[in-house]
């Protein structure tokens, strides 16, 4: 038996599954100051009369880190950057916690400017003077040569062994220096509060004497063992939307192209499933308006939800991005889209009389009836969401392509189903589907689809290897591990073998067993370097990963 627990900002949901059957679900309010209590309450609800020794896995998803970041409740961090030539350093100095060090590595991993030891030492003393003990060291092109970052880190740890130090090449090994800076910064900043979350989970499980394996959902829809996740807290940002997307994947018919519409109180999250595969964002998760290198599902958050306040602006109804309280029909202060749905009989939430009253007030000033006003409101919400869905498909179609075959295989895709999850989706999903010419889909257990999604999530790990046979080295990016290549026989196959071996070993350290035959190659790129008329070497890039997907489909069978 598996349990999925989704710790959201408002509710904590739980679902108990067994072999594709949902045995129990629960929804309880989240009490941020007392997380253990909320987690226990949700779990107790679904584990009543269950033999806990039969629990195999518990998988958590959480918006904790997302919320911490949004509320800027995290630790002070100073960053030491080694940007070298290129973009003017003025762009990096926008924040007071940034220190620029001399030194540069080029795109082939060659040192082009040396580090300056004196400068490093004086920068460290400056940071020490400010009382900050949490630092990140990030170099441009560090994924191609980790030595500068590691050297600076070694000087710091030599002088201040108690400081928390993180190097960029380990946290964010793709090419994109600003995203690497941001990702490293967030990793340093959220480590301590994330530890609080992990400890809450651990304690809750201890109280109930549960010894199942515990995992945490990542933004890309895969999971990490809870213990290992401590090192990479930012991987858990946006795991909430990933959970509901996986939930739809588990509950919807196989192979469909679906839009996941999760309508919450003030925001609506949209995600895409293309022919049964959740779409990953090509740019990495965006946090505080900054792209990161966190692999994440392509989720778009729209500032409209069931509790968005409605008001008259000029001769039009405007949907405000703010929540003044619950819907009028639930005892709130202002008319909301939820009231509009209730008025039209498209939902059963709240008191009908109150809903009609809210719509009548809104409509009166515009010279229309309550029903007319409600129609206009739902129409506006549907138009807004449909436009955003169209945009998401367009963005996917227009993603840059760097190879001829990639350009040629581009095609238009339209959804088969619009899947509604979360509380307030039902009424809207039907209309969105009608407008887009596809079928509406409200899965069983739609209200706790995120907990179900967490329960069916599977561990994912990936390893990327880059080899430069002319320079004579390779790097396992995720581990910032750099090794010399000996002999001339290094080739693509060797690179793949090494990457797979490294993936298996790395997974084993997290207690995961990976079979070589199930490893997928997701990226493979080889360039012959021609100098003069001869091949002087090869550049090989490979990425391997454990299979992505869900543990099993969930039938619509009830309790």
């Amino acid at each position, binding site marked *: 038996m598996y349990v999925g627990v989704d710790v959201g900002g408002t509710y904590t949901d739980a679902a108990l599954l067994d072999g594709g059957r949902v045995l129990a679900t629960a929804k309880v309010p989240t009490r941020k100051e007392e997380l253990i209590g909320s987690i226990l309450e949700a779990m107790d609800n679904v584990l009543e009369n269950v033999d806990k020794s039969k629990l195999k896995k518990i998988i958590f998803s959480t918006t904790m880190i997302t919320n911490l970041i949004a509320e800027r409740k995290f630790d002070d961090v100073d960053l030491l950057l080694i940007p070298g*030539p*290129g*973009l*003017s*350093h*003025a*762009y990096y100095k926008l924040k007071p916690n940034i220190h620029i060090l001399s030194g*540069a590595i*080029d*795109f*082939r991993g060659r040192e*082009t*400017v040396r580090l300056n030891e004196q400068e490093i030492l004086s920068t460290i003393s400056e940071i020490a003077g400010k009382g900050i003990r949490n630092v990140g060291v990030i170099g*441009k*092109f560090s994924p191609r040569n980790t030595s500068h970052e590691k050297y600076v880190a070694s000087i710091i740890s030599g002088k201040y062994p108690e400081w928390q130090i993180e190097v960029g090449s380990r946290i964010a090994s793709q*090419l*994109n*220096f*600003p*995203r690497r800076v941001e990702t490293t910064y967030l990793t340093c900043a959220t480590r301590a509060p994330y530890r609080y979350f992990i400890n809450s989970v651990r304690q809750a499980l201890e109280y109930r004497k549960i010894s199942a394996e515990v995992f945490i959902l990542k933004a890309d829809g895969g999971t990490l063992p809870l213990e290992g996740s401590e090192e990479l807290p930012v991987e858990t940002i946006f795991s909430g939307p990933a959970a509901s997307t996986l939930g739809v994947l588990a509950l919807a018919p196989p192979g469909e192209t679906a839009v996941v519409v999760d309508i919450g109180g003030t925001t609506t999250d949209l995600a895409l499933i293309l022919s049964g595969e959740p779409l990953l964002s090509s*740019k990495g998760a965006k946090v505080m308006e900054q*792209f990161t290198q966190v692999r994440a599902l392509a989720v778009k958050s729209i500032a409209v939800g069931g509790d968005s306040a409605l008001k008259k602006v000029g001769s039009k109804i405007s949907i405000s991005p703010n929540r003044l309280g619950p819907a009028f029909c639930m005892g709130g202060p202002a008319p909301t889209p939820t009231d509009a749905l209730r008025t039209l009989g498209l939902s059963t939430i709240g008191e009908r009389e109150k809903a009609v009253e809210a719509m009548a007030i809104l409509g009166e000033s515009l010279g229309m009836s309550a029903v007319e006003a409600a129609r206009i409101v739902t129409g506006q919400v549907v138009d807004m969401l449909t436009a955003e869905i169209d945009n998401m498909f367009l963005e996917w*179609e*227009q*993603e*840059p*392509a*760097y*190879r*001829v*075959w990639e*350009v*040629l295989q*581009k095609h238009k895709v339209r959804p088969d189903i619009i899947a509604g999850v979360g509380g307030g989706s039902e009424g809207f999903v039907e209309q969105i589907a009608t407008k887009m010419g596809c079928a509406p889909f409200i899965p069983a257990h739609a209200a706790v689809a995120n907990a179900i999604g967490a329960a069916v999530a599977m561990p994912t790990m990936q390893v990327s290897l880059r080899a430069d046979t002319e320079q004579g080295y390779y790097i396992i990016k995720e581990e910032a591990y750099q090794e010399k290549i000996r002999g001339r026989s290094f080739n693509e196959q060797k690179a793949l073998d090494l990457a797979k071996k490294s993936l298996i070993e790395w997974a084993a350290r997290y207690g995961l067993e990976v079979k070589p035959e199930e490893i997928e190659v997701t990226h493979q*790129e080889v*360039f*012959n*370097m*021609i100098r003069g*008329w*001869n091949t002087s070497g090869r*550049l090989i890039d490979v990425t391997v990963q454990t299979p992505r997907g869900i543990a099993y489909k969930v039938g619509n069978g009830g309790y």
Partner: protein
Amino acid sequence: MRKTSGKQTGLIFFPAFDWAISPTHPEREERLLYTRDQIFEEGIIDFPQIAEYTPSLATEHDISRTHFCVPGVREQTTEAHLIASGAAILLAEEVLSGKIKNAFALVRPPGHHSMRVVHGNRGFCNINNEAIMVDYLRRRGAKRVAIVDTDAHHGDGTQDIFWHDPDVLFISFHQDGRTLYPGTGFTYELGGPRAFARTINIPLPPGTTDDSLLYVVDNLILPVLGDFNPDFVVNSAGQDNHYTDPLGSLKISAQGYARLTEKIHPDIAVLEGGYAIETALPYVNMAIVMALAGLDYSGVQEPDYWPGRFKESSGKTKEIRRIVEELLKHWEKRDRVAPGSGNIVGKFYQREKRIYYDTDHIEENQLEKLKLCDHCPGYLTIDSAANRGYNHNKVLCISVPITACSKCCSEAAELYHKSKKTTSYNYVYLQDKAADIFYSFESGSKKERSLER
């Protein structure tokens, strides 16, 4: 001028990582690899000043508006060519419609050695991306277009295509043709009789540095552009002026390129040549993107460069200034020079050309005739014979300009129909830019094809 404040710079990066002329050819998969690394690592694509686009394919119709491909477009192009020229068209359209302030088509394969008639590959080029884009722009309503070709090689293909066009100004600076392929681009090449000084060639001596190049820009290119007052400025951005280029011998730095771009202020830059793939391209491409986007580029620098590293002899500096003086004089006479009577036969101006296709080893002989019309730039005919080994192709190409008068249109159509009946040509083509319809006729099978929108 279009309003540009607050708008983005459009970028299409299309390195064609799966396309090469041949595995060891300079125009191979690896060419833009390090440029990708540099641009990706700098992260500038995430900047709000930049909008990255995905390319689309140019159509046969788009290409036939500019070229006479023998026998047809499909035989002379691969998908990579269609993507490169399609990228230029897409970005030009976005600039023209005001969605973005300017753009860079950072694409390969290049095109500026491709002439109007295409029998094969010349100087790594099959079809001329900028020319195809300019003809597209004119169709979309741009009246006057200026092309500034900043590749180290003379843009002889672009020159050929717009030689007789009074509404397209072609300015090319390049390393002196006596010292570099294709061996043309001298100051006396000034355009056809109805487009005198609409072609301006600035041959630079080997060793020319940033300072002298910028002198040419300030004292010749910018004043000429100012007088011509184009609706659209195109930069054929070759990167082989760089001091590390293996083919060229000029001494331009990434900083020089950035300032050059800033001064020319093109609506769109389209990548041409440049084969110092590690030592120049990553830095020069970054510099150009930043300059177009209005980002501070002062920190972009090659690892082995320092300001003042290159100095040219005073003799070269003087020579460059003399060339600028000479060309300014030609420019002043731009609307007042009549064609030499020696080349006039009846109502036609004619010239003979020999063209060599270095990559494909083709020799072509052309007889080009321009109708001297009092009401329009006149239609053009090219009688072309090409030899490739034992293969011999003789074709007649008739081109009607977009601004053609009705008399020229009907005369050209008559000539096309008459020529179809003779047996002298393997193919006869009619490129009617005024109607935007392009015909090709194969004598052997008597089959005619037409391409229209």
